[in-house]
């Protein structure tokens, strides 16, 4: 049976894990109201910069980098 490579599941775990962790922290600890300094609220960092930009970019990077490395290793 074909099956997406392990690195695919790692990326899925990172993206969904991060989302559900942040939602849990919002529900339990109210981090959405946290002022991280200078009046900037935490959601801009964890949902905006990290969630919307950084995490998808990192996952997209490992999704091309690891298969390429594996192909290079197979090629010798």
């Amino acid at each position, binding site marked *: 049976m074909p099956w997406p490579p392990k690195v695919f599941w790692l990326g*899925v775990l990172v993206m969904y894990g991060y989302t559900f962790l942040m*939602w849990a922290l919002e529900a339990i600890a109210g981090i959405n109201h946290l002022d991280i300094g*200078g009046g*900037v609220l935490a959601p801009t960092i964890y949902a905006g910069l990290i969630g919307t930009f950084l995490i998808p*970019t990192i996952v997209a990077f490992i*999704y091309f980098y690891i298969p390429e490395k594996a192909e290079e290793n197979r090629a010798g």
Partner: protein
Amino acid sequence: MVDPIVAGITVLYFIGVIAIGWYSKQRMKSATDYYLAGRQIGSIVNGLALESTYLSPASMLGLPAFVFILGYPFWWAMMAIIAGMPLATLLTAAALRKYAPTSFADYYADRYNDQRLRWVIGLIVVFGAILYITLSIVGMALFLLAILKLPYIYGVIIGTLIVVFYVYYGGMIATSWNAAFQAALMTVAAVVAAIGIAIKLGGFGALHQAILENNPKFFNTASDAAPPHPFVGTWLAVMGWYFVWHFGFATMPYTVVRFFTTMDIKTARRSIFWTSLFAGIFYVALQIIGAASKVMIEKYHPLATPELAAKAAELKKPLAVLVLASIQKTYGVGTVTDYSMIAAVEALNNPIILGILVAGGLAIAMSTAAGWVMVVNTIVTRDWFDMLLGIKKAKEDPVMVARTVSVVFLLVGMFIAFNPPALVLDLSGWAFVVIIASIGPSLILGLWWKRANRTATWVTAIVMFVLHLYAWLKAKYVLGHHAWFFLNDVLGTKLVTPHQVWAIPAGFLLFIVVSLLTKPDSEEVVQKYCVELTQEA
């Protein structure tokens, strides 16, 4: 009154688009060049083209409008759209590039060994395409309104003519290179506008405080006592919004066909990295613009006069809503909440930023309309007219027939855009869920599951298309909004399931059950289009 700086920047943009289109046309030698850019598109250009094709006015106008309406929890839906991009890398993009078909329907016809599938797959894609072409024309009309201050209806006509010209003379080479240029432009436009808004409000800290002062519930979530809106009032609703668009990048025809245009599998995978990078920057900027829209309009928009503020207080309505209503009345705009993002930037009173934004907005609308038109004219001209009906003209002169088909679809979109049935993001969500639920399972599981079979493809496509269409229309026109679960009136519940998003897992479940209960496809076909495509893909 037309601002010469805004108009000048827009004219510069059009000169750039025409120059790129003209250069591309010189290189176009065959029908393959027209359909698939000769499969010579590199990773950065293809990544940028993917960004501008995938992200439409539903992103640029619709997402900030929904942040304006639903508040911060909607940011997670935006995060999910970008997070869905990498999923496509290993789920569909690499395998489909290895297979390298011409049309979106090819995979279904080959994998399930049934050429008649081109009819049903094509029909569902055509439905989604009409919604998307419509929302792109609406977007163009709204951006043209920001420049020309003309009635909305003229914007719709002029916008359609521009896209007709663009698609007619370009083909996929023009749309690939132009789309890359447009992606860069729209990303820069959103970032410049977000920075401009932050500066106007006194910096990022002051921006957050201004948002809170204007709307104290904005950053609340489903766990807070007063969520910003009932449609994000439960975590189930927040999850619903999260998944509406999430799987679209891996399954929607207008992105899937771009995987076909890359030079090789390596380029296809790398393209998505560049898409995620640029789209991520673009979306963070849109999150900021959407969050600040209400406060910007109410504090700085020229139509937010003290008289209107007094009227808003009397009617107990937000001033921003009355400003938008005033724009709607003056220019005859169909769905004016879509204008909130432009209105927020108008409030900056900076014609250079508005000019860049309008050029970026026209870019995103044109590239999306063109991308969808290319998908449907490939399906109609090649799959239906040539392969299924054997029409001689479609075989002898496919480019001319495809161009005619493009014009027909753009005209249909234009007529719907005169009085759009919903906000641009509503049209987008509708198209996404119906396509993902009805033909997504057979695409993804067809690649990764040997038991996926032809019967399940037919059953899922027909049942989920009809069921979702009924559910969406009932929720919208009987219950009042597509976000209500369509059986709320029967069950006595108040469940929020945006765009009837339950249809996505239901579609996958139906596909799996029917596949298990019916005869498997031949071993030879499964080996060729499932096992071999996903090996080391």
